[in-house]
């Protein structure tokens, strides 16, 4: 028995009523890329525009007040969802910007320190010296890799990384990677390609032992399992709204109060200032310091409604439901000759991203046949190209499950892969 009532959930998602290619039922197995949106979220966003739309934090009239209230209430609600204080939550356009915001805090602090420019108290933690190290893992999404490559290139710091075992887990045997030079450890909570859920507790202990900060890319965890920053021990958490039933165009950065306070701004402009003159400017306290320009208030309201939706389902139930589908998908796919799962085949400490390759057939071709059958999966390197290199596959086919999927969808996937094999005669 599933932990969720999928039939009634599906009724909330207008897009699931449409058919695709030759009138097939849509089997949407690409929620790892972006989730679909229930009408409740779409209604909340629309209600904002139709009744309260105004530029937030910029006006004294009634609409501006209502819009500001709605925006800040959303911030508090979303923060609460991950066990955080409202003031420690910064809105960005997506997780990618959130991660860049932190990497640029290092760059800007380093540049300003070099030139003796004013910096917030505590900014030393973000100043890099040649030889300092940033530690990532080989399973990172490009969003949590390239910003750090760029930062190292520009500052002379060194990028190091934790490798992967053949089973698709972090290879934590080489503890010499954590050194007194390590300033930041940036890693994913759940790999978007392998499905692996990392042991964050262990990483945090190793990082704290050497005085490094920890940034957790929670793009694939906040939507899928209970996440509580007050328990995780990390310093920064980043994720996107669009993967958790929320609108496109909004992401989140949570940071410890004292760290956000110590960071110089990234994007600068209106609403993030304290005083401005032609000669120079000073900046507001977080979170505003990091939210220059008119923000995506309608999207914050939509995301807040998404959070309520998930809270009502219960994140424990969401995780249990996905676990059930993951077990079935792994079993079903492994039953097909020539299929190799890239990532753990054991469903413990593992989320619902299931990637695989099929002997003799490129994932694009597998994906195309699935698509003809109404099954939407993602094919390619999933913005985690180094993982493909590590397992020496040019690309994988990936199915990802969410609250609106059920065992019928798993069966459709398995049948579809059989069909692809048959069609190409492999």
């Amino acid at each position: 028995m599933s932990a969720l009532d999928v039939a009634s959930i599906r009724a909330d998602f207008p897009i699931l009523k449409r058919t695709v290619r030759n009138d097939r039922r849509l089997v949407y197995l690409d929620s790892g890329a972006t989730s679909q949106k229930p009408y409740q979220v779409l209604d909340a966003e629309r209600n904002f525009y139709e009744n309260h739309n105004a530029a937030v934090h910029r006006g004294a009239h009634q609409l501006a007040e209502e819009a500001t209230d709605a925006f800040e209430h959303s911030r508090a609600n979303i923060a609460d969802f991950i066990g955080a204080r409202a003031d420690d939550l910064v809105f960005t356009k997506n997780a990618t910007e959130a991660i860049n915001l932190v990497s640029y805090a290092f760059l800007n602090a380093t540049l300003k320190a070099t030139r003796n420019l004013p910096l917030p108290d505590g900014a030393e933690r973000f100043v890099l010296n040649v030889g300092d190290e940033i530690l990532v893992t080989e399973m990172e999404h490009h969003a949590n890799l390239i910003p750090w490559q760029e930062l190292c290139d520009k500052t002379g710091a060194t990028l190091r990384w934790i490798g992967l075992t053949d089973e698709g887990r972090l290879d934590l045997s080489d503890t010499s990677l954590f050194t007194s030079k390590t300033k930041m450890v940036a890693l994913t909570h759940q790999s978007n390609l392998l499905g692996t859920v990392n042991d964050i507790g262990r990483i945090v202990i190793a990082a704290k032992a050497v005085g490094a900060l920890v940034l957790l890319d929670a793009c694939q965890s906040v939507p899928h399992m209970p996440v509580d920053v007050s328990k995780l021990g990390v310093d920064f958490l980043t994720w996107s709204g669009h993967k958790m039933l929320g609108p496109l165009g909004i992401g989140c950065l949570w940071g410890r109060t004292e760290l956000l306070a110590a960071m110089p701004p990234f994007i600068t402009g209106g609403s993030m200032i304290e005083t401005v003159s032609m000669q120079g400017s000073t900046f507001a306290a977080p979170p505003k310091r990091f939210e220059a320009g008119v923000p995506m208030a309608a999207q914050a309201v939509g995301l807040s409604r998404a959070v309520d939706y998930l809270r009502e389902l219960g994140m424990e139930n969401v995780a249990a439901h996905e676990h059930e589908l993951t077990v079935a998908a792994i079993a079903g796919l492994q039953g097909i000759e020539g299929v190799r799962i890239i990532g753990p085949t054991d469903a413990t400490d593992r989320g619902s991203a299931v990637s695989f390759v099929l002997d003799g057939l490129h994932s694009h071709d597998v994906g195309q046949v699935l698509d003809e059958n109404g099954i939407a999966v993602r094919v390619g390197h999933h913005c985690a190209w180094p993982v493909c290199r590590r397992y020496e596959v040019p690309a994988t086919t990936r199915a990802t499950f969410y609250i609106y999927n059920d065992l019928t969808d798993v069966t459709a996937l398995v049948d579809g892969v059989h069909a692809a094999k048959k069609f190409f005669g492999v």
Partner: protein
Amino acid sequence: MYQEIILDHYKHPHGKGLSSEFASEVHHVNPTCGDEITLRVQVLADGKIAVSYDNQGCSISQASASIMYDQINNFDFAAGDKAVEHLIAMLQRNVEPDEDILGDGIALVGVAQYPARVKCALLAWMAWKDAAIQAGAIEEQS
């Protein structure tokens, strides 16, 4: 929001003008609208804090500064801070206004309905607290 009593303070502010004797000076601004206050404090021998200020801004920020002067000039830190905290709580609608603590300041209760104006009402009081702390008023007292 604009009660007679507030308009009176606004038009005839009490204590406006900077004193040349001071231990610390702060300059606070309300970035959304440009209200500004320069506020000076002097901690007296008995721990009481003498305050003087100059400001520009809206009726609420000016009236509130005038009321602040009436209420807590020559108070010690604990007593002044109690008034500041009460004002904050009142503007967040967490307590009923207490005239014994705020005097004319209870007339500011209507501001709570206008979140964008709360900063105006708090400006002078927060400046007082900041200046008092900088002047070491807390230690003096303990």
